[in-house]
C-alpha cells in the first residue's frame, strides 16, 4: 500500500514533466526555473538542517564502544572500534562513512554439521545489506560526480578520467557506464529487500519507498536518454552550462525525457533536506560514533550542566542517623552532644 502510493507519486511526477515540458511547451520553466529553485532549496535546506542539529549541544560523551578500551599498557586497545583520541576517532568515522563498517559487522551464527554429522557452530556474515548499500551509494556518487562534466567547460582532467574509466567496459554504444549498473543493481536490491524481508517490510514507510522509487526513476530516465533515445549531449550541456553561468538560452533539440529526468532530480533536491536522506549529513554528527571514549581521561564540558544539583549531603545524612551511628561506633563529624 505504502509502496504503491510511493510509486504513484513518482509516476505522477513523470507525467507532470512530460505534459509540462512536452505538450504545454513550458520548457524554459522546466529547464531553468524549477532546477534552479530546487538547487537553492536543497542548499539552504541542507545547511539549515545541519545548523539545527549543530545548535543542539552534545551534553555527554556517549560513544558506543565496539572493542577493547584503552587501559593498562599491556592490554592492546582496539583503536578503531573504541577510540580514545581524536585521530583514532577520525579513523573510526572514515571507516564508518567510507566503508559502512557497522553494517559490515552484521554477522549471524548458524549451526552446521561436520563430516560425522556432529553439530558445529559456524559463523557466516550477513553482509547482503552492506553489499547493496555499498553498490548503491558508490554507484550514485560516481554518477553524480560524472555529471559535473556537463556543468564545466573545459572538463577537468580528473573528471574526464573518471568518465573514461567508468565506461572502460566498452560494450554497447554509447559505452555502458559501470556506475549505472552499480546504481541500478544496488537500488533494485534495496527495494527488493524492502518487499521480501518481512521485518523490513513491516517497518517501511512511504518515507522509505518514495526516495527509492524516485531515485530509480531518475536512473531509468537517465539510462533511457543515454542508451535508447540517445539524446544530443551537447544541447543538454548548453542547458546545464546555462544553469551554471546564469546564461539562459531557450533549449533547442532536447528530448522530453531530459525534462522528465531533470524534473525528478529537482524533486529529489527539494525532498532531500526534509527527509531521512539527510543521514548523509547526519552520520558525521552522530554522538555515538564521532566522539572518543575518553571522559575518564580528560574533562568534557556539558554546556547546560546545572551546578545547583547537589547530592543529598552527608550532613543531612548524619543528622538523620546520628544516634544509631553513634551507638554502632561509626565515626561521626558531630557527636550527639555537639549536635544537640
Amino acid at each position, binding site marked *: 500500500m505504502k509502496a504503491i502510493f510511493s510509486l504513484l507519486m513518482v509516476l505522477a511526477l513523470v507525467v507532470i514533466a512530460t505534459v509540462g515540458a512536452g505538450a504545454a511547451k513550458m520548457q524554459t520553466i522546466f529547464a531553468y526555473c524549477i532546477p534552479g529553485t530546487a538547487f537553492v532549496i536543497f542548499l539552504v535546506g541542507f545547511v539549515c538542517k545541519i545548523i539545527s542539529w549543530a545548535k543542539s549541544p552534545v551534553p555527554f560523551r556517549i560513544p*558506543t564502544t*565496539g*572493542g577493547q578500551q584503552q*587501559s593498562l599498557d*599491556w592490554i592492546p586497545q582496539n583503536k578503531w572500534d573504541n577510540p580514545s583520541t581524536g585521530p583514532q576517532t577520525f579513523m573510526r568515522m572514515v571507516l564508518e562513512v567510507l566503508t559502512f563498517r557497522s553494517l559490515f559487522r552484521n554477522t549471524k551464527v548458524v549451526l552446521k554439521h561436520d563430516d560425522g554429522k556432529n553439530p558445529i557452530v559456524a559463523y557466516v556474515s550477513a553482509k547482503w545489506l552492506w553489499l547493496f548499500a555499498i553498490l548503491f551509494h558508490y554507484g550514485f556518487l560516481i554518477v553524480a560526480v560524472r555529471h559535473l562534466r556537463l556543468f564545466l567547460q573545459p572538463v577537468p582532467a580528473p573528471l574526464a578520467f573518471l568518465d573514461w574509466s567508468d565506461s572502460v567496459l566498452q560494450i554497447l554504444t554509447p559505452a555502458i557506464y559501470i556506475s549505472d549498473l552499480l546504481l541500478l543493481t544496488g537500488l533494485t536490491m534495496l527495494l527488493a529487500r524492502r518487499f521480501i524481508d518481512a521485518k523490513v517490510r513491516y*517497518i517501511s*514507510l512511504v518515507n522509505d519507498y518514495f526516495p527509492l522509487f524516485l531515485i530509480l526513476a531518475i536512473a531509468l530516465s537517465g539510462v533511457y536518454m543515454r542508451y535508447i533515445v540517445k539524446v544530443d549531449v551537447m544541447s543538454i550541456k548548453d542547458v546545464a552550462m546555462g544553469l551554471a553561468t546564469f546564461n539562459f538560452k531557450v533549449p533547442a533539440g532536447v528530448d522530453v525525457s531530459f525534462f522528465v529526468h531533470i524534473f525528478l532530480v529537482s524533486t529529489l533536491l527539494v525532498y532531500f533536506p526534509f527527509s531521512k536522506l539527510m543521514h548523509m549529513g547526519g552520520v558525521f554528527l552522530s554522538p*555515538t560514533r564521532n566522539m572518543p571514549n575518553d571522559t575518564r*581521561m580528560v*574533562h568534557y564540558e556539558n554546556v547546560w550542566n546545572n551546578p545547583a544539583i547537589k547530592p543529598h549531603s552527608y550532613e543531612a545524612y548524619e543528622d538523620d542517623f546520628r544516634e544509631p551511628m553513634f551507638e554502632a561506633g561509626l565515626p561521626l563529624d558531630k557527636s550527639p552532644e555537639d549536635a544537640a
Partner: protein
Amino acid sequence: MAKIIKPDEMLKSINYAPPATDWMDLPNDLSPGRWAYPAKLEKVEYLMHEVPGVFGNPRTWNPADPDWQLPSNWKEIVVNGFRERLDKYRSLKLFMDICVRCGACADKCHYFIGSGDPKNMPVLRAELMRSIYRGEFTLAGKILGKLTGARVMEEDVLKEWFLYFYQCTECRRCSLFCPYGIDTAEVTMMARELLHLVGVNINWILEPVANCTRTGNHLGIQPHAFKDIVEFMVDDIETITGKRLNVPLNEKGHEVLFITPSGDVFADPGIYTFMGYLIMFDAIGLDYTLSTYASEGGNFGLFTHSDMMKAINGKMYSEANRLGAKWILGGECGHMWRVVNQYMDTMNGNLQGPQMQTPVNPITGTVFKNAAQTKMVHIAEFTADLIKHGKLNLDKSRNSDIIATWHDSCNTARAMGMFDEPRYVLNSVVDNFHEMPESTIREQTFCCAGGSGLNTDEIMEIRMRGGLPRGNALKHVVDKHGVNTMACVCAIDRATLIPLADYWAPGVKITGLHELVGNAIILDGEEERTMNLRQEPLPGMEEE
C-alpha cells in the same frame, strides 16, 4: 495471568492468520505481567522534594485501570518536554531525523528475539517516539499524517511508551549495528524522562533511587545495620580462612575510597564477591575505607533522569573529599560503570576536591592514566594490574572444580569497552575457561534482560523471554564443554542470571569475578582452607 480464551477462539488463532496490522493500529495489551508495578506515592513525593522538576503527579494508580489519573495538561507537558529535550540533546534530534529503517538493528534486540513482538524491534521502539516527533514537530508529518509514519500524542501512545520503553534494557546492542550509531538507549532514556514528568513510572526504579538518596544504598539499609552486615561477612571470612580482617567504615585519612553496588553487601551471591574484595584488600594491605553514606555504586538515577543521576552520583566525590581519599576504587557493576565512564566527570567533575589525584596502584606503582580525570578505577583493571605484577599469591586449584564461561555486561561492554582485563583475571584464577559463541560475547554480548531497572520479579516472564538468547548461548557451552559456572562483573547480572540460568541452562552457578579471586588468594597467616567463600567444600575436601 494470561486471559483464558474459549476453544473456538483458540482454534481460530491457530488456523487463521490474522491480517497484517499496521503497528500503529495494534492495541496495547496491559494485562498484568506485562508491566512492572508503579512507584509508591511517598517515594515520588520524596524525590520531587529532593530533585525538583524531574518527577510529577504522585498518586496511587494501576496500569491495568483504563484511567491512569494523568494531569489534565499531560499532553502539553509531554510535548513541551519533548521539544525541550530536542534542544538539549543533539543525539535525540539526530536520531529522530536520520533513521532510514534499513532493519540492521531489527533482530539484534534480546526482547525481540525472545518474544517476536514487532514493537520490540529497536527501529520500531524508536519509531514509537519518532512518529510523535513527526506528527508534532514536522510540517510534512502534520500535513501527511500516517502516510509518513506520523501521529499525535494520545493517551494510548503514552501507554504504549510505558509498555515498550520499560521493555528496553538500554543495553545498546542495536546501536552497535546501526550504520549511523542510532542508540535506542538514548531514545529510551528520553522517553522515560517524559513519562516521569506525568507520573508514569515503576517502583522498582524509584524506590531504590529514593532509598539511595536518603540512606546511601538501594535497599534503604541504615548505617548501623550496614555495619552489622559487613561484620557478618568478616565473621564468615574468619570461619573460612581463620583470619579476622579489619574493614574500615567511614574512616578519614585513607588513600582509597572503595565503592561497590550495595547488592554485593546484601544479596546472595554478591556477598561472596564482596568477601573476595575484602580478602584481596587484606592480601595487598590496601589503605582503604568503605563508606555507609556512599555505599551504593549502582545508580538507578541513570534509569530516570540526568539530574537524578547527577544528584546520586555526586555522593562519590563528596564522600571522597570528606574522608580525604586520593582516589576511588569501584567494584563490580554494570550501569555504575556506564555512569562513571561516560557521565561522572562531565556532571560532577567540579565536585572533586584538591586532595584527589590521578590513581596510582600503591602496590605496583602503575599509574592509571585512563582514569586521570575521573580518579576512579575499576577493580578488574586494578586486579589485572596486581596479577600481572605477581602481587597476588594465588592457588588456582581451589577453583579446579569450576569450568567457567564469561558474561560481558552490556554497560562495561558497549559503554566502556572492558573485555580483556576481567578475562585476564579470570584466567589467572581458574583452570578451565570457555567462551560462548562469538556473536554473543564481548561487544556483541546479550543482555541478562534485567538491566535498566527491569530486574524485578513481577515481570519474570518478560525477563525470561528476553534472557533466551543469553541462556541459549550458555546452554551451548554447557552441552559442549560442561561449563558449570558463569562469571560476570555486574551486580544486576548476579541477581538476574540466576533465574535465567536456572530456566534455560540448569546447573550453572553465577559468580562475581572477585569471588573466584577471593577463593584463590592465599592470605598471610591463614589456615588451610577446606571450603570456598560459599562455605561449600573445596575440591578434594568433599569427604570431610
